[in-house]
């Protein structure tokens, strides 16, 4: 299998789906000359023409709104928002419009659209440009929320998202674009709503998603050197949430830690932990620990940012905590 970066994998997914389906369009801020803020769309305009790949003004509200209308009109738009932070300017279109059309209008129309946005901290972009806002969108019925961690999943999930007939908020992580991994060529589809065990283990279940999956795997490697075998479950999709895979693992390990880059309170780990204790209470030998970001508007200074974001060390500590080895 070819080794591709996360960026290339996403680029291939867009390219293949545009080839496959005339109705797929790509638009957003600077997706043409700039190739998107992170270069994912570069070259697409040249190859598919500016009728299918085009720039928009800086106006996230209409970028998302036009995607809703385009989808209702028979197209399959893939709209790029430079970062998830700006999705807050499109929150009304995504939550009050895209998510409602299907059910509110009695099922007469679906809205097959994908909103791609970059999330995550770690590049010293300060508080308005370093947020992880997936929980806000994952809270909303009518939406699907996808957060790939690896190049293979990035490609397979984006292809599935584009073919999906529902509105999908597809959140990429800024620090993953350069990460390489094996990616199956051509028709590689990863179903939405399916978590994956990225590493098997018997002692503890570590539930993560997006970049934190890699952090969890790093921690798992270190743990195994100490004789602790952690099973790492990558949620991949946050809505719909695949608890079956998580519960299967917890029933085996009897212990769980969740890892997220977002703020702890009212985050993703809270839902996962609640579901685990609801559905596997008697299987639990210890309280579920959550590893999450310090709850602060992310500062610019490197020392502060690094201390705010979860790392393998903190996952390690949490795992030992639940194993009573702290």
């Amino acid at each position, binding site marked *: 299998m070819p080794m591709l970066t996360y960026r290339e994998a996403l680029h291939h997914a867009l390219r293949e789906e545009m080839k496959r389906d005339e*109705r797929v*369009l790509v638009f957003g801020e600077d997706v043409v000359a700039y190739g998107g803020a992170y270069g994912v769309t570069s070259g697409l305009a040249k190859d598919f023409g500016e*009728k299918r790949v085009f720039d*928009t*003004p800086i*106006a996230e*509200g*209409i970028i*998302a*709104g*036009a*995607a*809703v*209308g*385009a*989808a*209702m*009109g*028979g*197209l399959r*738009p893939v709209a790029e928002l430079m970062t998830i932070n700006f999705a807050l300017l499109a929150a*009304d*279109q995504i939550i*009050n*419009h895209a998510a409602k059309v*299907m*059910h*509110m*209008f*009695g*099922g*007469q*129309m*679906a809205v*097959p659209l994908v909103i791609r946005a970059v999330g995550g901290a770690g590049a010293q972009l300060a508080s308005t440009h370093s947020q992880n806002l997936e929980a806000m969108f994952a809270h909303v*019925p*009518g939406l*699907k929320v996808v957060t790939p961690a690896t190049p293979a999943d990035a490609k397979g999930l984006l292809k599935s998202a584009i073919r*999906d*007939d*529902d509105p999908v908020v597809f959140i990429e992580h800024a620090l993953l674009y350069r990460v390489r991994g094996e990616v199956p060529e051509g028709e590689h589809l990863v179903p939405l709503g399916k978590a994956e065990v990225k590493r098997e283990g018997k002692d503890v279940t570590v539930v993560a998603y997006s970049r934190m999956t890699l952090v969890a795997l790093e921690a798992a490697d270190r743990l195994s050197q100490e004789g602790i075998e952690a099973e790492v479950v990558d949620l991949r999709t946050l809505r719909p949430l695949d608890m079956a895979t998580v519960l299967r693992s917890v029933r085996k390990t009897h212990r769980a830690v969740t890892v997220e880059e977002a703020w702890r309170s009212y985050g993703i780990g809270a839902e996962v932990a609640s579901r685990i204790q609801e559905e596997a209470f008697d299987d639990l030998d210890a309280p579920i620990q959550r590893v999450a970001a310090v709850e602060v508007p992310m500062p610019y200074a490197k020392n502060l940012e690094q201390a705010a974001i979860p790392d393998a060390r903190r996952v390690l500590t949490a795992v030992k905590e639940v194993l009573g080895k702290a």
Partner: protein
Amino acid sequence: MGGKTGAKTSASGLDKKTLLHFLYQMLLIRKFEDKAGELYARGKVAGFLHLYNGEEAVAVGAMSALEPQDVAITHYRDHGHAIAKGMDPKRCMAELYGKATGVAKGHGGSMHFFDVSVGFLGGWAIVGGHIPVAVGLGLAGSHLRKNQVTLCIFGDGATNIGYFYESLNVAKLWNVPVVFLCENNLYGMGTAVHRASAIREVYRKAAAFDIPAERVDGMDVLAMREATLKAVAHARRGGGPYCLEAMTYRFRGHSMADPILYRDKAEVEEWKVRDPIVLFQQRLKEEGVLMDQDLEHIERETDELVAEAVRFAEESPEPPLTDLTEGIYANP
């Protein structure tokens, strides 16, 4: 106040059948609205109910300028637009009742009428929120070469929200076939236009995007038709977006909850003198197009249709509880 455009508004150009149909539609809408208001008072209809009384000429005139493949999208004050676009009053009434036979299966209610079969794409309740959606519909229309024009209707209040400007800008940049029709009924809820907008002439806002725009007398169904025909033709021939500002007035409150403390009787009376239905009737009579028996016939037909709509709604079943877990996703 409704400064007339140059648009020729003599009935002469149209045949009797067409002219009477306009009268029929306006009366049907008026009666549907009065009945809806009555049923709301009786607790048969709930939620928010925004009636269209007084603005009928805008919907009927504008929709008459559309071709079957054209689509309309509007805000929550949508009954008149829906009926004028050809939706079935029975299923509309059933929607107000929250019945399974409603145009949105009882999920949407008054603010969310929708019928893809006649190209009526909602009924949206976030002020201004559907305007960007209209631009997307226009994009699809031109991209898929549907020879389709999108008519987007909204109120004066909606022209102060960012969406409106973002949409006009992008519509012009993408040169999409969208006609933006603002129903300026002088108030957004209880706020007069000049208290919410820096300029009173809403159509002038289009100049910031070099989009052609004009004001129309929204109490004159034929003036509305002619102005819309011109705007639609412009859009269909590839001229891009066009803006219309229809000067009109709502005879009733903003919604059923409105005590109407913000406008005085005199103003209301002044506008009621210009009731679009009365004016059109008089004119058709003067021009010898409308005979007493025609009117009786139209009155009877519209009365019966509204009564039938109520019967249909009353007799229809409630939506099944399975609707709470099904139909949320196209690909569950």
